[in-house]
């Protein structure tokens, strides 16, 4: 097991405990990888974080090799006492596979018996799917610039906040946990639009907040719609006379209200996890609050990287887990670049777009045609870790998320050598520990073994 001053966490869905049994799972992660902390997806609608692997990704060499058709929700037993200030109360996962199992209540005793820390992990989603199938959820959903209900929860909706605060209070008060990891994986309207999504949010709560700030909501809405239609035309193949980038920039400059709306959204996002940090400390100052940082923020997207100042995380996080899945990053980065290349950077070739993004994001990786097959280098893990450590002044432990079991269909298969190199690079970059990611159910055992080997070679176990 990891030495006391070292942190070896692993993300794990409830399904693995059900499929393999508590004892076997703990034996495996402790013996092979030396894990001393588990991050259970106690609330999730994401197959990647909580379920068995999608069949198209391939199954790991353990667990049940059968599709689980995950619906998701709470994998713990919500205590109604904590949900009196919210109309979102029925969110227990309806999946039959989980009946009778409490992801926190049943796991905590075994974890603590083994001196393994227990954290609940929840990760936001930047995408339209999966839609949260919770009764009344549409009432907290965002509204797009065209006035239509969208799918993600609105960050300024008081009922979304109340619900989230209730969940945190419930988890911390009802269970013997060591902390909560909140995964930051949302993005503001401009970036959603480049991804092909609708511009949000223009609900009554956002409009009210805008009015208080003196932002003209109608101008902002008009600007977003103009930009959305511009992107639609570009996707359809229309090339403006003045170039795609210049024409898009012209809309932004003509509607500065867009940038005000972007900041309002971004401030709301940040304020949510600042408040969550306070909620955790209100319940129990010893309970840890960690922040997961999406790879699109820390690595791929200069706009998101500019929105999120890592140095400020030190004020309200007990630890930070940057997602640094280096092998899947190859394919994912190229796919990200394609979305830009298909819209705002259409003036450039895909190769040029990738090279531009590499330069401004300070990446020293392969070219667009090679990246899916090579992935990112282990040096990337080292550099990004060091950057984050430096940004936070060394005041907050950084546990890089190491991509050991992450679906990478169409990209390079992760090998034990890759896993070992990434672990070593993380520590060389100044990490105080690591997070074995993304999900135990996806992870081949030889890769877990490789993580353990690397830690032993480093003297961390």
């Amino acid at each position, binding site marked *: 097991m990891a030495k006391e001053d070292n942190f070896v966490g692993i993300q794990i869905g409830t399904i693995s405990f059900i499929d393999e049994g508590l004892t076997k799972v703990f034996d495996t992660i402790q013996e092979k990888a030396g894990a001393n902390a588990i991050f259970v997806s106690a609330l999730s609608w994401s197959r990647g974080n909580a379920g068995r692997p999608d069949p198209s990704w391939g199954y790991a060499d353990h667990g049940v090799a059968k599709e689980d058709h995950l619906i998701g929700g709470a994998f713990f037993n919500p205590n109604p006492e904590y949900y009196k200030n919210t109309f979102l109360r029925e969110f227990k996962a309806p999946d039959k596979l989980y009946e009778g199992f409490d992801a926190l209540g049943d796991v905590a005793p075994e974890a603590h018996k083994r001196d393994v820390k227990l954290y609940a992990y929840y990760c936001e989603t930047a995408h339209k799917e999966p839609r949260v199938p919770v009764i009344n959820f549409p009432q907290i959903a965002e509204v797009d610039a065209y006035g239509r209900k969208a799918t993600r929860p609105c960050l300024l909706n008081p009922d979304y906040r109340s619900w989230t605060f209730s969940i945190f209070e419930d988890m911390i008060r009802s269970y013997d946990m060591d902390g909560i990891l909140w995964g930051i994986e949302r993005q503001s309207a401009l970036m959603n639009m480049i991804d092909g999504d609708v511009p949000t949010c223009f609900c009554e709560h956002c409009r009210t907040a805008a009015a208080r700030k*003196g932002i003209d909501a109608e101008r902002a809405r008009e600007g977003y719609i103009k930009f959305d239609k511009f992107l639609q035309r570009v996707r359809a193949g229309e090339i403006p006379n003045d170039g795609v980038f*210049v024409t898009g920039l012209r809309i932004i400059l*003509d509607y500065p209200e867009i940038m005000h709306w972007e900041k309002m959204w971004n401030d709301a996002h940040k304020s949510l996890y600042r408040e969550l940090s306070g909620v955790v400390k209100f319940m129990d100052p010893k309970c840890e609050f960690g922040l997961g940082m999406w790879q699109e923020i820390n690595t791929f997207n200069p706009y998101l990287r500019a929105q999120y100042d890592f140095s400020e995380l030190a004020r309200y996080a007990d630890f930070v887990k940057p997602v640094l899945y280096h092998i899947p990053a190859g394919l994912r980065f190229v796919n990200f670049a394609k979305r830009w290349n298909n819209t705002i950077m259409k003036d450039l070739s895909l190769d*040029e777009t990738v090279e531009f993004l590499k330069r401004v994001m300070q990446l*020293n990786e392969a070219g667009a045609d090679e990246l899916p097959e090579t992935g990112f280098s282990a040096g990337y893990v080292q550099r990004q870790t060091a*950057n984050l450590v430096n940004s936070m002044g060394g005041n907050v432990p950084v546990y890089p998320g190491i991509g050991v079991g992450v679906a990478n269909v169409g990209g390079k298969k992760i090998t034990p050598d890759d896993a070992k190199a990434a672990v070593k690079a993380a520590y060389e970059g100044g990490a105080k520990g690591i997070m074995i990611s993304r999900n135990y159910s996806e992870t081949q055992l030889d890769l877990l073994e490789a993580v353990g080997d690397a830690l032993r070679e480093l003297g961390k176990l």
Partner: protein
Amino acid sequence: MEDVVGIQIGAISFIDEGVEKTLDVLQEKGGVNTLFVSALSWSRGNAGRSCVGFPDHGVQEIDKFTGGAFWNPDPAFYGNSVLRPAKTPDPEYGNFDIFRDVIPTARKRGMKVMPYYCETPRSTIRHTSIPNAVQAAEIDAFGRTAARPCNNNPLFRNWFFSMIEDWLKNCDADGLLWGIEQQSGLKGLLCGEPATCFCPFCCAKAEQLGIDVDRAREGYKTLVNYRSRVNAGEHPIEGYFVGMLHILLEYPEIFSWEKMWLDSHRGFHRDLAGLVKFIDPDKQMGFSIWQEITTFSPYLRAQYDYDEFAEYSDFLKPIVYRIPAGIRFSRYIKYFQPLLFHGGADEQKDIEMEEVAPLKDMSHEEALNLFYRLLKLNEAPLDKLPAEGFSTDYIRNEVARACAAVGDKVKIYPGVDIGVAGGAGGKDTKPADVQASVRAAYDGGASGVVLSRCYAEIMLENLQAAGDTLRELGRI
């Protein structure tokens, strides 16, 4: 109708060479039928003798150029203006009046005369010869008086309204060519200029628009301080581009201020157009558009849409100086590249990533290629660009872009370089270059050309080449 074949010319040429002789040369060699005279200027490039070598005509001696008015202003037109145009103090000009002494002779020859005034984006050119002009100057985000006039300051606005009325009504000029070469605070500070304008007039306008003045000021100051740190060698962990974008996203009030400045700038141009038409609907209103807007800067190109000019212009002169563009654009890239794209390598040293080859900053060549793509340019690589200049395709495409945007409503007379000092290391313009440029302009759909930049800089063989080409094309 005959094509417009214009030429920019300063008073010094008429003084040095004589009005009749100068007009003879312009008509016979270049086929010129329109004079764009620098009636008011503090720019040697627009109004003085050549600043980089002398051509084969005129006086071969550097003038002690101060600048100011090159005509005799009529005080009757300045009743609502604290600022009065002062005649240039330079001794060469004596009592010469560029309108009084040129228009009658030009008219006899069927030539039109319009004053050409060009704004300046730089702090280096100041209206020092005008008493009280400093009171119309911009104020930067730190509260310091800057150098350029503020577009929202009524002293400046009334002064120009008075002058234009004087030019068109009193001096009987045929129209006005206004050179658009100012830039907003953000673009200015990227060029090392002060972040302007925060004068009382701009602040009052911002308040009317609901813009938070203090936040905007703080945002610009943060950017200026960031620039200072970068120039002092500081390397942001997140990289230079992201570091700057972070400030912009944190202070969206900067975007509001930029738009307010831009709207004020464009609003002033609309006012000028209205003024010209008020005086006489037959007088022509033209705008000369800076090459940084038409060609070099994606930001400025985004700010200024050709299409919009169609609402209030009779003609446009997009500046497409292709030969000097080579050295100018290469300098432009080298100037901007460090601040925006100077990311990487040194940060890697800072964190001692020894086993990884040091990352390279975005090279000048990479920055050039990025700008080429964003601006739809297809020109030479950086090492060849100063010696080659831009291609004729550039002129053709840019003129076509302008024509497509404005349609039939506005005439496009591109500013074709036949003698523009690009600076050391650049290519000299030869007659063959001139011929190719003029042809390219017409291939792109031009309705005329403005031979640029200034007669005092132009070799006669180049003027002849322009005229020969126009004759070959049957345009004159």
